[in-house]
């Protein structure tokens, strides 16, 4: 929120925005880029914690499966577990990225090269 341009907030005030309208039209869109950075960063940490927790303490799930496979030397299952993790991670990142490029079209960094 602190990254939102105070000049824009001031402009919103002069043009009669207050409370919810100001938030919806100025503050929230202005904070979106930072929100997405935070989201993608925390997605990474979330997966990491999940995997560690799963392989150490869980009695079911992919981590448990991978652990058991390791104990019984079933390399193919271990590889499968790793692949599933990779795919899930990639998928989550892709969803975040797509949301980002949908909502941040206005941002110069996300704009496709001009047609004209």
């Amino acid at each position, binding site marked *: 929120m602190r990254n939102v341009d105070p000049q824009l907030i*001031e402009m919103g005030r*002069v043009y009669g*925005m207050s409370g919810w309208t100001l938030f919806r039209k100025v503050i929230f*869109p202005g904070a979106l880029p930072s929100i997405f950075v935070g989201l993608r960063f925390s997605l990474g940490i979330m997966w990491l914690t999940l995997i560690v927790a799963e392989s150490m303490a869980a009695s079911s799930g992919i981590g448990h499966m991978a652990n058991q496979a390791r104990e019984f030397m079933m390399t193919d299952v271990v590889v499968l577990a790793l692949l599933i993790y990779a795919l899930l991670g990639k998928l989550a990142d892709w969803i975040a990225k797509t949301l980002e490029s949908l909502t941040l079209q*206005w*941002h110069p960094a996300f*704009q496709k090269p001009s047609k004209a």
Partner: protein
Amino acid sequence: MSEIINPVRKTNAWGKEIEPEFSVRPVRESNRLGGVGIRLSGVEKSFGNVPVLRGIDLEVPAGQFLAIVGKSGCGKSTLLRLLVGLDEATGGRVDFIGDNGRSVAANSRIVFQEPRLLPWAKVGANVAVGLGEGGAKGDRAGRVRAALSEVQLTEKVNEWPARLSGGQRQRVALARALVSRPDFLALDEPLGALDALTRITMQGLVERVWREQKFTALFVTHDVGEAVALADRVIVLDEGRIALDVAVDHERPRKRGAADLAALEGDLLKAIFA
């Protein structure tokens, strides 16, 4: 003069929105065309212990184009911010005066030095900000189109602000200010950040919309030549006081670089640096 100008504006700005009989008997325009008068009595403003404005008494008739010049830090922007309600005066009164000579609430708008467009909204949506909330969708779109055609940017309605040039962005900001048909328009060095050639075009544009809409305009600038070229009256602020109040009644449109204007500009500059 307004009889000559009106028909132009109506076809220009409102297209099919305005019925022919509207131009015969303007309904809402009677108070709008004249703008509002402004009366400042003993206005003071200080930030902490630092006085910025020290007792400003000023009467601006409705529809006047008043330019305020002065060195930086003389309080000209502060004065403007008081008028549009961005700051509160620490002393004195600010009144907008209607047709009947009584104090009224004015529809005032401001154009800043920077365009201050919402980068996440397309040009059309940015102009619609000037309309506030509510209103029928079709009506809003029509008014946005009209305002954009005033600044000759109709074709950019679906463009992102990041794609526009500096001058175009400032024109969008002007359209946003004009779309609600203000009685009073404050311009805070609106052309300060533009290159010299764009400035000349924009000065013509500002003068044209002012002549068409007849709002009261307060134009803060540090360019004395610009003030003299555009305004009916120029005020020089110095250390929070009005140092000089000059009427400029040269015929419009004024020629840039005309000798009498240049002489006036020279006198004003002398007064500023006296």
